[in-house]
């Protein structure tokens, strides 16, 4: 820990040395398998998720609904088959009452069936693919995050509101990237000058940056999670393109800002929450989070914090009887808790109905980088797939 402080890296993630993945509370009451990506370049997201959850549990004195909780942290390594093996272990060997977390959609898709078929509640704090929002909605599946299309659509609305005519789109060449384009286009009606799909292992964006400069768009829209976003933002800034508005999703956020720093200042992102939210609960969360983990919490951490509150509310309502699945489900659907985001409820498909904000990267007085809300873009937004859901 000292060494990290010495090196002055704000991006403190995880714990030094070999930490047992079992974080125990006093006596086992409820067992939760917390699945997140904790290795590889995407691990910052998983760390945000895990730390958000753990802080929430700490705020609840290690209890959910008054029952002591044991969190089993599972690293999916961003490999679907690894995730599947470990989740099966958690279900069978450790008999967890719920599986929570999940950063990436492909991991969710791999573990979805075994978890829901064993009638265990699956609550994601980040992944929210369309697959389970519409016809594939499931009584055991909940999310405290959003449906994946929504943040992209929010940015499409922003581009539309600002009156941009020509937009340049840059996304990774995989399903989520294509979904991002579709989401953006669902609300943006202007001209898309060019769409570029880059490989997920892209090292350098100088090629694409040159193309953007040549195309001279009104703004760019991009979705470049993790290390990709760090590279892109740097190359974009260094090429002197920062005068072209940078509209993004999951590209400049608290997980990547420690590395992007000044290069990302003034860039835009869409979010359900930002650390500058004014409500007291949010303020306490940010303060305690930074004190405990040494970095600024982002959307991911907030959504995971809410996930713990959601479970807490349900256990409270059912009096700790996790075995009564129908009662637990009904209680979960009520979502009877105060979210960090304020306005929050669950729709028929168990996806949140909430507000979406335009946020901007700023440097706080204390020298740390964070996102800050600019304005509310969508109010009480229900995802487009919810209408197809017939919950059985």
């Amino acid at each position, binding site marked *: 820990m000292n060494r990290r402080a010495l090196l002055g890296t704000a991006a*403190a*993630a995880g714990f030094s040395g070999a930490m047992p993945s079992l974080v125990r509370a006093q006596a086992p009451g409820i067992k939760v398998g917390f699945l997140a990506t904790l290795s590889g370049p995407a691990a910052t997201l*998983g*760390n945000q998720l895990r730390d958000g959850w753990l802080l929430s549990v700490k705020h609840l004195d290690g209890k959910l609904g008054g029952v002591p909780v044991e969190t089993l942290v599972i690293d999916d390594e961003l490999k679907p088959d690894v995730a599947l093996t470990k989740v099966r272990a958690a279900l069978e060997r450790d008999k967890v009452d719920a599986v929570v977390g999940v950063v990436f959609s492909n991991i969710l898709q791999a573990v979805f069936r075994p978890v829901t078929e064993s009638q265990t509640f699956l609550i994601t704090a980040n992944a929210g693919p369309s697959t389970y929002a519409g016809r594939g909605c499931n009584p055991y599946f909940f999310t405290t995050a959003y449906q994946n299309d929504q943040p992209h659509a929010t940015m499409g609305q922003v581009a539309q509101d600002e009156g941009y005519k020509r937009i340049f789109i840059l996304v990774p060449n995989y399903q989520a990237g294509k979904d991002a384009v579709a989401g953006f286009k669902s609300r943006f009606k202007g001209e898309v000058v060019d769409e570029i799909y880059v490989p997920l292992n892209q090292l350098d964006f*100088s090629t694409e940056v040159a193309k953007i400069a*040549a195309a001279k768009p009104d703004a760019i829209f991009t979705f470049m999670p993790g290390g990709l976003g760090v590279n892109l933002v740097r190359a974009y800034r260094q090429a002197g*393109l920062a005068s072209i508005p940078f509209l993004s999703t999951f590209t400049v956020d608290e997980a990547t800002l420690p*590395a992007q720093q000044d290069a990302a200042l003034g860039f835009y992102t869409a979010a359900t929450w930002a650390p500058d939210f004014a409500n007291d609960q949010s303020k306490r969360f940010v303060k305690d989070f930074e004190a405990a983990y040494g970095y600024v919490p982002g959307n991911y951490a907030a959504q995971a914090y809410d996930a713990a509150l959601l479970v807490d509310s349900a256990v409270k309502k059912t009096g700790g009887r996790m075995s009564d699945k129908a009662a637990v489900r009904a209680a979960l659907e009520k979502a009877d808790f105060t979210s960090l985001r304020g306005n929050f409820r669950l729709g028929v498909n168990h996806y949140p109905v909430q507000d979406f904000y335009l946020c901007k990267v700023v440097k706080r007085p204390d020298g740390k980088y964070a996102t800050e809300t600019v304005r509310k873009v969508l109010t009480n937004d229900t995802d487009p797939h919810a209408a197809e859901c017939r919950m059985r």
Partner: protein
Amino acid sequence: MSVNLLLVQLLNGAQLGILLFLVAAGLTLVFGVMDFINLAHGVQYMLGAYVAASLGVWANSFWLGLLLALPVSLLIGLVLEWLVFRHLYGRDHLSQVLATFGVILTVDDAVRAIWGSAPLPVPQPEGFTGGVEIMPGLTYPTFRLAIIVVGLLVALLLWLLVDRTKAGMLVRAGASNAPMVSALGVDIGKLFTLVFGFGAMLAGFAGALAGPVFAVTPGMGDAVLILAFVVIVIGGIGSIRGAFIAAVLVGLIDTLGRAMLPDLLRLVMDASSARQTGAALASMLVYIVMAAILFFSPAGLFPVRRG
């Protein structure tokens, strides 16, 4: 595509190529002289970036970090050589692949444990933060130009070292015929250590240079490692000249492929499938070129060893 844009893309390709060359040069020497497959070479690149970034933040100077990263990289290389690699020289390639992969796993996880999983912030190189406006609306960062110049200088230096000095002569002789060199009474163990340390330092230097351009993350060496292997295989194992030409070739192919393939495909298919096929094809292009070169010239473009 305008001439200006093409020029920019050529510069980009050259810059990627130069960085690849710095990594590949050490790899090809180690491979050529010692017949040793070192998968862990990418680890040196990663550690170079991490050390330079951390020391740069600590000293509040990118250049000081870069300078300090050199001896540290050398030291790390020598320690790894002493701990693991020297026990593998006489072994078959298979054992070397397995053991050096073990080194990758260990060091990648160690880096995560020490520095965390998040990309590391890197200080901007003082004096090179500006740019040159090459094309209307596009500034080409002077630091990237500096990488090209520095890389060319290092390539020249390497060429002089390998071509004009006694140690270089031994290295060249070792690359084409190792038993002969040891028969000449040269301490082959010392030569190996020297070459290894030098290669490690070059890779570390490349990593340190790449820090401000790319993201400094755990596992950043893996992608570079594969490309570096592609480079030395295309260039001919053990050949510095081959590594240089192949590195620039790979850099240009990768960059121009990404820049132009989607547009070219649009001539024969509809826009949306052209974009996606083009992107997929561009990722594969380097490998396709390598397979084709090996098909027609199984020992690479500049084979050092006969037969």
